């Protein structure tokens, strides 16, 4: 029977919602394919057992079995240099046909290298589609203009994918998962050492384009500040001298590497979208309902971008009780 492994990422000692969503999707697949669904959990201490412990949570979200990859050095955050060897060992003990990561920065560090170690195909920022009898793995490529589709598990080798969370995770039942403990061997890297961890929330990026009046620049700045994020501009705005070239997000400029991007009055040209990372959730505001940005954004609002920026900045500032 094939094994499907779901990597569980922790935040504050709890499985992240994206991990539980991946577990939900893994459950669907495992049931359809007759596979066993494992939750793969690196941990520095073995979890305690009670109603809300992580084993119970993973069970309720669909895991048949939980693999605890245990070593005192395997606490979060996980990087390949700290956790990779232990995860490769666990995958050799429970060889996956499919290894699913929740799409995240942690996955971007771990998943591609694990795929290499497992001689597996690697598909990041993916979604799963079910058509007839077949499952497909899809993801957006070419600046979100094309969809790449591959049949799931059609080849003779394993697949490693990272799955974009599409909805809130659901609890599926009360069955208790079996637990297997892998006592991991960890050799601290001599070349890479963690010196300091700072817990900060990276705010969203707020972008202004040619569809915004220049009177909105201050509101844009204020909005970025209220959201705790940073500001970028489109090539049109920078080329016309209304924003410095350093702020230009484009194929010829800087990346938008935040998890969230609020694009105001931006048309969504290919050159601009080349700067937006595949994992970034895009919310677009544009008064043109046919603007290309709406074909690549996750959320859209047809409205005047200048007015929207002004109203948002005011309302978010009020709801916070003051500007930051």
């Amino acid at each position, binding site marked *: 029977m094939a094994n499907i492994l779901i990597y569980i990422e922790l935040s504050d000692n709890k499985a992240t919602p994206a991990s539980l969503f991946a577990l939900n999707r893994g459950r669907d697949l495992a049931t359809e394919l007759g596979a066993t669904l494992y939750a793969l959990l690196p941990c520095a201490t073995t979890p305690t057992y009670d109603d809300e412990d992580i084993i119970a949570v993973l069970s309720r979200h669909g895991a048949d079995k939980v693999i605890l990859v245990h070593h005192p050095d395997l606490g979060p955050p996980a990087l390949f240099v700290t956790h990779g060897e232990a995860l490769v060992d666990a995958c050799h003990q429970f060889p996956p046909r499919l290894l699913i990561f929740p799409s995240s920065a942690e996955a*971007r560090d771990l998943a591609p290298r694990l795929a290499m170690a497992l001689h597996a195909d690697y598909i990041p920022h993916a979604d799963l589609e079910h058509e007839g009898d077949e499952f497909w793995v899809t993801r957006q490529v070419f600046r979100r203009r094309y969809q790449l589709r591959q049949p799931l598990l059609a080849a003779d080798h394993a697949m490693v994918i990272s799955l974009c969370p599409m909805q809130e995770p659901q609890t599926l039942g009360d069955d208790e998962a079996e637990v297997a403990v892998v006592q991991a061997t960890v050799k601290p890297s001599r070349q890479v050492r963690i010196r300091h961890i700072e817990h900060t929330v990276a705010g969203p990026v707020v972008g202004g384009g040619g569809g915004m009046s220049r009177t909105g620049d201050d509101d844009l700045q204020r909005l970025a500040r209220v*959201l705790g994020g940073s500001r970028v501009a489109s090539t049109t705005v920078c080329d016309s001298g209304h924003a410095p070239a350093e702020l230009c997000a484009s194929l010829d400029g800087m990346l938008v590497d935040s998890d969230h991007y609020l694009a105001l009055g931006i048309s969504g040209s290919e050159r601009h979208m080349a700067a937006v990372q595949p994992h970034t959730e895009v919310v677009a505001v544009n008064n043109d309902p046919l603007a290309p940005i709406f074909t690549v954004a996750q959320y859209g609002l047809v409205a005047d971008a200048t007015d929207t920026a002004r109203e948002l900045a005011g309302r978010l500032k009020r709801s916070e009780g003051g500007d930051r």
Partner: protein
Amino acid sequence: MRIIVLVKSPHAAPQRDETLPSLSPGDRAALATALQLRDESDQAIAVTAGPEADDQALRLALRAGANHAVRVIDPTVRGVDQRTLGTVLAGGLRLVGFDLILAGQSSADWASGGAGPAVAHMLRLPHVTGVVQITRTGVDQELHVRHQRERMSIELLVQPPAVLMMTRGPFLELPAAESDSGTPAESSSETPIELLSLSEMTLPFRRPLVAQHQLRPLTRSTARMLDGIDGLVDLLQRWR
């Protein structure tokens, strides 16, 4: 220190054998960082793998200040297959020599972010993704590396050789591409591009791993449309 920068000009679109006259933004961040880290005894070497059209990225890197440029030639390189690309690049880098390897987090075409870790795997080097800043510590070749993720920033001490994949870097204005300026490619740089053929080398594998795939244009809106600004405010509240 020999600082390798893996660069690539993103491909224009499927079924069109051309590249956009620029670098992927992550590669630009990597190049800018390499040029900033480099001191008088160091060399910044731009490396790519692929057909002649990919020389565009190397010429841009040379004009921005890279010391050398190398294109690795191997018939097995395919855009979508990061495993083969990583294997071929690693084969080339063994011949070129390296102390530190920088790359963009992901390209602006296939955008998988798999090439850097693949190179690191083949060369048995540590890698770090999501790098937003690199500075020297002043102790030998040791580096301060800042890795950024959703809710934390991790400062690492890295002793090269290692592969570091950048999402941000210092601002670097690239000179206009040849196709924009109309000047002949050959005259754009005094430094010739070195061609490195691996056809005689025994690589661990040359068989592409990627299963048969399909490409479909995305032309229709998939955005969830919000009714009004209230919905947008709710959404943004969740981001905070």
